[in-house]
């Protein structure tokens, strides 16, 4: 290969709320940082997200949730990915998530959780580092 291909990232918006400004900001920032970004749109079930990740063969899935059902939705996506043979896909999340929930989510296989104040540059460089590390191990 002459040059490395861009990493593919799925940004998904689970849950019922219809505000996706935050998700769209991430989508644009990651595109500008050189990722290939796919966005599902709002109101996605965990099943839809997992199947989309399978068809798009992404390297990472980012879940954007304002508040609420993260403790059930995030682990559900992680588990469905595993069931589909996508256990090595990096799952990260963003939203207003209390500290103790973050710890629990990480235990359940979510790689990283970003609070509302996180800069998009930090998210992009986190992903590059994490995915570069994963592809070296493979």
């Amino acid at each position, binding site marked *: 290969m002459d040059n490395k291909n861009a990493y593919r990232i799925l940004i998904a918006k689970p849950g019922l709320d219809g505000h996706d400004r935050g998700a769209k900001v991430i989508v644009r920032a990651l*595109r500008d940082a050189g990722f290939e970004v796919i*966005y599902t749109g709002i109101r996605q079930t965990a099943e839809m997200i997992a*199947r989309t990740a399978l068809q798009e063969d992404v390297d990472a899935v980012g879940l954007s949730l304002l508040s609420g059902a993260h403790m059930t939705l995030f682990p559900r996506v992680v588990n469905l990915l595993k069931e589909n043979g996508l256990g090595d896909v990096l799952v990260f999340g963003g939203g207003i998530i209390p500290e103790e929930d973050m710890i629990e989510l990480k235990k359940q296989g979510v790689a990283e959780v970003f609070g509302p104040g996180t800069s998009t540059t930090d998210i992009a460089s986190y992903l590059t580092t994490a995915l570069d590390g994963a592809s070296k191990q493979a």
Partner: protein
Amino acid sequence: MAGRRSLISAEELVSRVCQGDQGAVSRALTRVTDESDGYEEIARSFFPFHGNSPTIGLCGSPGSGKSSLVNTLVSLLRKRGESVAILAVDPTSAYTGGAFLGDRIRVQQHALDEGVFFRSLATRGMVGGLNETIFSAIHVLEAYETEKKKKGFDWILIETVGTGQDEVDIADVVDTVVCVTAPYQGDEFQAMKAGTMEIADVFAVNKADLEEVDKAVASIKDALSLGLSHDEEAWSIPVHAVSARTGQGIDVLLESIEAHGKYLLDSGEIAVRRKRQLRKELSSLVSRLIRRNALERVTDCHIKALVEKKSDPLTLSRKILKGVS
């Protein structure tokens, strides 16, 4: 990391695709479009499935409603129980290498339908149009075993901007080209028209729920009549007003797409198109390989010779291409 990214052999990938495993389809698509290690053997193994599925291209300017039309066409086809694979191609930024692959949003209602496989692709290295890996990607989809135990999706749809002037143009890739336009595309459309008039087999004027659609239809018919053939047997290009929003005209559009497929078969034109596809698949690969090989052969010695004016670029480039240094 465990499992997936570790290299599955070409043999296993092909056999899993041929057993209807969509995870394997997805993996195979990545391998051939990334051109990652071992992709040549994979691409080779899928080639024999060429020609198994009818391929339909949807092209037109951004915003004309291609993805929305794909969505409504898929709904119609699924009602008839036919399986559909979609490759949706969006441009890679020349500056960052990144891309927003935004077509998925319009078709997410089909996300859980096992009879639909949707994959977003970036142009990667191509300014417009498609890159040469599109051919191998199609062959992967042509090898997939559907629920009906048939090889190849019943339909393969390819969405791309498509101008009729790209290096690998949609018209070199698919059996039937559907050009999508919408009212109010004025100048932009005028610019595109020259190219798309040449490649369209069917015209869809989308957003018929808006005003001015009749005007758009009339202007396309007008432009088409200039190049009208007097051959009775020839395909005459239909122009349909449709609306992805209301569903208006979609059934007629599909009828025209199928009629074109039938025309290709009855007239023998299908053989001509398939040959054209194969010629492009081969020639785009040749030019790719030449470029890659030859550029690898350019060394500092060559540059030194130029600096010292011991040779000139033309002489050197010929030598390099001949493999003489």
